[in-house]
């Protein structure tokens, strides 16, 4: 324990130094500490398998008490003319992209919260209304939220949305990984309804093995990358595709957890309240000395 504290202390010293000298703090710090469960769950999305039936959109709305309409209406493919994003009334949407390798079977990309292993929203939230649960879900607590929307500023995938039209009790909306359903042993609604098993639910570490195997077996079918394996420190939702992910509007992100730099600066400034207290003592000393000097050399100034 003592050793740990000392290391933390040295770390924070290093970060404080780096903050002043201009070296990115994350170069000095290991990944922020995590109590991530080894058995946390995830989802593997295979964009080459998805047929774009959008049943997952319907199931998601139904599971979250959002008016969903008729399932038959979801076969209307005209929505693919525009690229859509998750919204207050749609926590997941499917977008369609051309597939140059096989023009007859386009790539369909399901978009929702990625459920980061080191979520920026959890780190940013002023009241700690977001949490990363043991099963991998990143969820939001309506009883705490003050509606500041810092989560939306922080999220590298631009996922959380806000009720701008509500004067009272506006909510933040995003996919909650069907936290209420999985607690009872049910599958996430989108996974359950998918007719072609384009989305696979399982332990994240197992899903990585599955994904690696698929890439190995079908090198022509996939680009050699699992999106979400390392992005911003890893995400619970991961993707396979035959096109480069940037062409499918996935943001190009580094491997460092999104909150890393800001958290280490934050803890550097505070560091067990040593810097503020030291500053207080220093200013107190100056005050005392200059007061005494004042009394001795009266009329000098």
């Amino acid at each position: 324990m003592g050793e740990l504290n000392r290391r933390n202390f040295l770390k924070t010293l290093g970060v404080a130094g780096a903050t002043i000298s201009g070296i990115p703090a994350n170069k000095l710090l290991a990944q922020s500490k995590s109590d991530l469960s080894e058995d946390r769950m995830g989802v593997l999305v295979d964009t080459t398998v998805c047929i774009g039936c959008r049943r997952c959109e319907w199931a998601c709305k139904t599971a979250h008490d959002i008016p969903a309409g008729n399932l038959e209406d979801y076969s209307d493919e005209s929505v693919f003319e525009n690229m859509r994003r998750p919204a207050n009334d749609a926590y997941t949407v499917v977008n369609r992209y051309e597939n140059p390798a096989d023009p007859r079977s386009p790539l369909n990309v399901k978009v929702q919260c990625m459920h980061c292993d080191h979520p920026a929203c959890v780190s940013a939230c002023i009241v700690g209304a977001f949490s990363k649960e043991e099963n991998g879900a990143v969820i939001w607590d309506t009883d705490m939220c003050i509606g500041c929307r810092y989560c939306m500023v922080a999220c590298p995938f631009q996922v959380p949305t806000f009720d701008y039209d509500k004067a009272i009790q506006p909510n933040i909306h995003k996919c909650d990984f069907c936290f209420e359903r999985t607690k009872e042993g049910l599958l996430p609604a989108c996974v359950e309804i998918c007719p072609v098993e384009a989305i696979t639910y399982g332990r994240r570490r197992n899903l990585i093995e599955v994904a690696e195997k698929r890439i190995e077996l079908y090198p022509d079918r996939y680009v050699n990358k699992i999106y979400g394996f390392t992005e911003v420190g890893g995400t619970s939702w991961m993707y396979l595709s035959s096109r480069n992910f940037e062409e499918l509007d996935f943001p190009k992100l580094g491997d460092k957890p999104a909150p890393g730099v800001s958290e280490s600066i934050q803890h550097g400034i505070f560091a067990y309240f040593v810097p503020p207290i030291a500053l207080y003592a220093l200013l107190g000393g100056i005050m005392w000395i200059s007061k005494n000097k004042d009394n001795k050399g009266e009329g000098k100034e």
Partner: protein
Amino acid sequence: MEHEFQPEQIKHKYFTPWVIVITLIALAGLAFLAVRYLFGLGAVTNLTQFFPWGIWIGLDVAAGVALAAGGFTTAALGHIWHRDKYEVLVRPALLTALLGYTFVALGVVTDIGRWYYVWHPLIMWNGNSALFEVGICVMVYLSVLYIEFLPIVTERFIGRVNLPGFLSMFNKIIDSLLRLLDRTLNKFMFVFIIAGVVLSCLHQSSLGTLMIIAGEKMHPLWQTPVLPLLFLLSAFSVGFPMVIMESLSASKSFGLKPEKDVLTSLSRFVGPILGIYLAAKIGDMFIRESFVYLTELTLPSIMFTIEIVVGVVIPLRMFLSSSVRQSTTGLYIASMLVIFGVVLNRFNNFVIAYNPPYTETSYFPSIGEISVTLGFIALEILIYRAFVMIFPIISLPVKSALRKTKYAIKGV
């Protein structure tokens, strides 16, 4: 020096044509504010799912906090370094900080969706969040500012409590309570003065940490791990120019003789502080090699250049010139430029630099947002004007030999 001046209530007509204009601006802002509270943020603002923060955070909160820096920088100079000749500036700066932070708090309450939960951070802590740190520091500092202001209230009312009607029976007891408060505060005020400076340093820098978490979404000209340091240095550098600008504005508005000697000596500090800020900003740019973005003509590169050249380099040169420092007009223009530079810097950091993915449109503030921002500024001016007429804030030359030395030194 301090023997020649004494804080007094200003005797002047409240309403002038300009004050009426300012009142109208304030009323327009209040009207839009009512719409926001009745129908939600969407009814008034141009905010979207991609641009969650606009000028209410970038200007009202971020720039508001920076411009209130005159309070703690002057308090540090006058009370911690005991440069007594600047004593005359401490009370006006304190009042500005007090009003500034009050309106920062109002700005936050207006911007957050659930304003009635604004107290949540007091009991729901997230030590990882830069916003939490800013929120707590601002709340505590606002309380400290009100405590620092109390001696001015006691000075105003001790021996002068005169309640109307049957309430007059309480006159005596209120008077003795004020005297007790005055004596107690006098002993412990140094605790609050130092705390005010420490709290200011903390949240001025943490305000810079806020946007770091936006990572790739923020333009590289501004996105840097040294943002907290840059925010702190720019807050230091805008503190005295704010005090100078306000002092000159107040003198002009009330037809007083400006305290030019004091302002000229105060302005000597500005050049070196601005120089350090500029060095940090340029140094950071070269270490991260972000200057490559200045070679292309884009909105960010133009805004960045204006911020540096007009807001830092030109006023730096002006404050280093002794003829500018001796001239009232020179001081006023140079101070306004520094203020402009810091306001633009906060606006750039929170609005211009923020470039979210998945959207073709960009954010431009709505009439409602602009009205509320201007309305808050107008209200601040109106309350400032009222306060310097009610309380002894602005120092005037003392003619009589009899001085009330008791309150002259304590002040704050």
